[in-house]
């Protein structure tokens, strides 16, 4: 069995400022890591590898820096990794990212299962997993919290607002997972050392047979028209809580005034 895991490298925390005069956006992230939900997708793939035997290949679309994230996945036990990187990909939206990943998966060939995190930490669209399934012509179950494999059929639990569903789905398929599914493992020291030596030459648009105009900003179905800062609250009051009873009384009075109690 060949499992592909799609990951994204994201900033660990995001501080954004918009210059009121120029509308320019400055975005500072403290450090970069694997999108948290994608770590759970990787762990689900590695668990299937441990129990049923599988080859695990990790794909990412990103800048050269995303090689660090791929090395981390190799350290944890992934068998292969591909850094899909090309200046032509700049400005690609969820549609284009889905298409790039689906093309890479088709080129790999013989893939049975694709696992993604349910959404990314920064973009938050939750579109790429279901979108790439559609490009592949495969089924997709999103928001999965349990995966077992019986022969060539997946037995799944999918979350929804009021509980969960048990689902059977034959391979090949695309699944997206939430953090409920597992606890990601750490990379072993040996794995980390081996991952350092991995060759991660970027796979370009040309290598995937994608014309630059078919991908990236020009091809994007959606565009960013405008950015605005979120209006923040003003006029809040601060209360000294040294006298707990007095603070509580004040809060209850305010809540009563607002008809919240």
């Amino acid at each position: 069995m060949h499992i592909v895991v799609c990951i994204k490298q994201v900033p660990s925390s995001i501080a954004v400022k918009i210059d009121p005069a120029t509308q320019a956006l400055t975005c500072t992230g403290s450090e970069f890591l694997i999108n948290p939900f994608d770590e759970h997708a990787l762990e689900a793939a590695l668990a299937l590898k441990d129990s049923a035997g599988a080859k695990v290949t990790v794909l990412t679309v990103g800048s050269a820096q995303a090689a660090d994230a791929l090395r981390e996945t190799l350290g944890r036990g992934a068998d292969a990794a591909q850094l899909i990187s090309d200046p032509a990909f700049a400005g690609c939206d969820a549609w284009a990212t889905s298409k790039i990943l689906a093309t890479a998966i088709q080129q790999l060939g013989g893939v049975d299962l694709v696992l993604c995190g349910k959404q990314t930490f920064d973009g938050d669209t939750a579109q790429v997993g279901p979108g790439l399934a559609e490009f592949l012509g495969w089924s997709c179950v999103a928001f999965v919290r349990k995966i077992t494999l019986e022969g060539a059929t997946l037995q799944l639990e999918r979350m929804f607002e009021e509980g969960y569903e048990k689902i059977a789905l034959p391979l090949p398929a695309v699944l997206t997972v939430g953090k409920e599914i597992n606890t990601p493992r750490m990379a072993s020291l040996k794995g980390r050392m081996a991952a350092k030596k991995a060759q991660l030459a970027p796979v370009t648009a040309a290598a995937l047979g994608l014309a630059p105009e078919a991908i990236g900003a020009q091809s994007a179905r959606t565009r960013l028209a405008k950015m605005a800062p979120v209006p923040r609250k003003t006029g809040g009051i601060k209360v000294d809580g040294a006298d707990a009873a007095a603070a509580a009384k004040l809060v209850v009075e305010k809540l009563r005034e607002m008809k919240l109690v």
Partner: protein
Amino acid sequence: MIDKASCSGVWIFAEQRNGALQGVTFELLAKGRELADKRGAKLAAVLFGQGLKDQCADLFAHGADVVYYADAPALATFNSDAYTTQLAALVQQYKPEILLGGSTIAVRSFFPRVAVRVDTGLASDCVGLDVDAAGVLQAVRPAYAGNVLATIVCPEHRPQMASVRAAAFKKGAPTSGRTGELVEVPAAVGEVRIQILETVRDASNQVSLADADVIVAGGRGIGGPAQFGFIQDLAAEFKGAVGASRAAVDAGWISAFHQVGQTGKTVKPKLYIACGISGAIQHLAGMGASDFIIAINKDAAAPIFDIADIGIVGDLFAIVPALTQALKSR
């Protein structure tokens, strides 16, 4: 690609679960009505299910001019394969200009598939919608951990699709006797590979944070699982829900179903009480839009105070029980 010039009308996907129309459907109808009027176009609702023809009256009463209703066993409950094929077929046949759905798990599972299948763009998890004179949908969604509101457009492809957060728009009052055109469409679900074996409505996982008017949430400052009892007691006084920060969930003090924030749930209650939560940007992204925020924290410099309407600097183990007591004796 659907020819842009041939498209007209605003559609909303009327999601039902267990035969009941979801609340966000009525919010979408209210906003959809406004957008359709601006465009001088019709508002249509799309309903999939089995034996739900009676529900169409409710959709008309809340503003729909047309209801496209597909009735089939395969559409009775949400199935990503069946719903994708059925909706994509309808879109290709009737060519709406705009297609909206609630930002529910079902819609977030199958709208991206529909978008790729009909070759158009989708804006996820929107909090604001408007349409300009040229018919371009302006879809506003939080970006960068909720720090920024980004306006997304899909200028060339149709329909312009968006999923919309619950409570982003207000539901309208029904007009009794208002009616419209019911179009019963033949089922066209294609090859369905997803087989739903069992639906488990699991009360223990039901932390209805999305629907709660009041949420009392605990963070790192709570210090341990037992102390969440204080939080539960206060939440109970409001008949509210218990929330948690990622720190409290990661520490194993409370299940991930309670997590509010960027990797948890996004909430917008009337009242949010943050106890021992410092206010990491990821947490603020999940609750910053709450109507009224009370923060209790011993650190006067905690960022949670920047967005709080009332910030109480002090010991939460004294203040939270005092607040519970004050509410009990009111």
